């Protein structure tokens, strides 16, 4: 009962945040230079009939808040209108390009978890040794390296010079796509790895100072057992939270990575839409990003609830 209530409340908060975000998303139409009808007209001929159709379709004759309400109702049905450039429904444009970006995000996430968690645990276990300082230095370099600069370096070394990996595009077929995914995924993951490594190290060090770890050590339990059973398990909460937070940044990173590697995806779509002032597509993309972030945050809370009995007790008790 209480758990259900907790989830319901979190959903409510998420929904509230989404509504606030949606207001800003709607306003994009109005902050874009030119009147809304000019923006929505795009490159089409400016005849009175077409303008009339646009005014009617986007309710431009209604008061501002009524327009927003209409837009929000449509948005709830995932209807963001049509792209000004291709005339296709925004949802179609979006889903067509979602696959490659999803693959990129997943590959980046896998790389991040596989590298960052062991690296952070290692640094914490060997704290104040040269190994720890090496990891700390690398995380510092990683967190200050811009994604696109890392991407261009990777392109040069592994694409142009060594010719191990293709330098642009998405590739075809499963192996081809995978081959095309390697460098972009690494470029996307560098900053993420640095962030999660730092969080993991800090979390593991906090756990290591706990009495139960001291007790486990005094009982003579092996180092690896202590680190796996106590430190890793108890650090997993902040690690999951950090990983969730970084998913919120994935779309921004995907824009840079997809532009650097000339990939077709939601990220490069975002830049094209912004450049061609295709406001409905931009609105759809931002709404999609906001929904993703909200769902991920909810997911993080649920996962944390599932892995930590203390949290469950706090919620129910």
């Amino acid at each position, binding site marked *: 009962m209480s758990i259900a209530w907790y989830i319901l409340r979190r959903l409510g908060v998420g929904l509230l945040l989404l509504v606030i975000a949606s207001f800003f998303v709607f306003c994009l139409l109005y902050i874009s230079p030119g009147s809304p009808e000019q923006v929505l007209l795009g490159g089409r001929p400016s005849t009175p009939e077409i303008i009339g159709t646009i005014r009617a379709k986007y309710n431009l004759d209604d008061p501002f808040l009524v327009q927003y309400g209409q837009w929000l109702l449509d948005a709830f049905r995932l209807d963001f209108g049509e792209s000004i450039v291709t005339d296709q429904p925004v949802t179609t444009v979006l889903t067509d390009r979602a696959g490659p970006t999803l693959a990129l995000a997943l590959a980046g996430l896998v790389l991040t978890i596989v590298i960052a968690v062991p690296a952070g645990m290692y640094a914490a276990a060997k704290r104040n040794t040269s190994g720890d300082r090496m990891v700390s230095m690398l995380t510092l*370099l990683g967190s200050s390296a811009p994604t696109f600069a890392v991407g*261009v370096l990777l392109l040069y070394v592994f694409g142009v010079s060594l010719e191990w990996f293709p330098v642009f595009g998405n590739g075809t077929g499963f192996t081809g796509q995978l081959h095309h995914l390697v460098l972009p995924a690494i470029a996307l993951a560098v900053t993420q790895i640095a962030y999660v490594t730092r969080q993991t190290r800090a979390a593991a060090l*906090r756990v290591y100072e706990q009495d139960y770890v001291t007790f486990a050590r005094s009982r003579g339990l092996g180092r690896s057992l202590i680190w796996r059973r106590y430190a890793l398990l108890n650090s997993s909460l902040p690690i999951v939270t950090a990983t969730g937070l970084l998913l*919120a940044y994935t779309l921004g990173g995907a824009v840079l990575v997809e532009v650097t590697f000339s990939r077709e995806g939601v990220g490069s779509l*975002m830049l094209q839409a*912004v450049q061609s002032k295709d406001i409905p597509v931009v609105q759809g993309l931002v709404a999609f990003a906001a929904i993703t972030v909200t769902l991920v945050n909810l997911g993080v809370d649920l996962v944390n609830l599932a892995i930590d009995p203390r949290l469950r007790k706090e919620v129910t008790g």
Partner: protein
Amino acid sequence: MSAIAGQDAIGGGTTARKRRRMPVSVLLAAIFAVLVVGLAIFGPLLAPHDPAAQSLQTGVIGPTSDHLLGTDHLGRDILSRVMAGARDAVIGPAIIAISATVISLVFGIIAGYRGGVVEAVVLRVGDLMYAVPAILVSIVVIGVLGGGYYLAVAVLVLLSVPADTRVVRAAVLSERHLPYIEAGQTLGLSRWRIMTVHILPNVMPTAVAIALLEFVYGLITLSSLSFLGLGAEAGSPEWGRMLADNRTLLAENPNAALAPALLIMATAAAVMLLGDWIYDRVSEESTTRD
């Protein structure tokens, strides 16, 4: 962010002996940062060629004795362009760092010392902005508004102030109940005097750390926006823009793209290292004082 750095400082357990010595990496970072600042001021004067001078007959060439880093597709000298570009690359991040720090000092000190409406607003806005990805928001807002370097600078200042204000507020809160502040209150000093003469100098170390870290994030985000064509205008030698323009030359003259890429990375890393080091020292001092 602050919590992580603080944790690192505690976990690091640096001894007093170690604290006095500046690590070699930090020293190198400081030297490099000074070099970049020097380039930003004198770069256009020191450049061996006119950074904008085109020579279409020359076209793209690799390194020669005359063009140490070769030229781009318009025959412009790469070395001169990265030297001149330092100014464009660094000035925006510097403005972001200074304005974000000053604004968050004002709001942070008021929120931390006086509380009230300012504190409530600071906390709520901070909550809202917590999960907002700055790069995505800036791409959308700046792109929709039509782009431009100083528009990007302004948007980035707005996006960084909420988080920075919270950090300053936290620093003020830890000062607020220390005896020297209470003594000042007992003596009947005005709130203004306590905030400016007593609290401000004591949160300055935090402010310096914020400024350096904001510089790094400003450099990363601004150069990213310029790379996407939303920041510095076409033809500008700003490093991110230059990288975008010369990306296609990786096979013919890799230096044209690698030089700005490495300069951005090295500058960001150097300032990050300095900021991290200062932050560690600051949080150590505050823990030893307790």
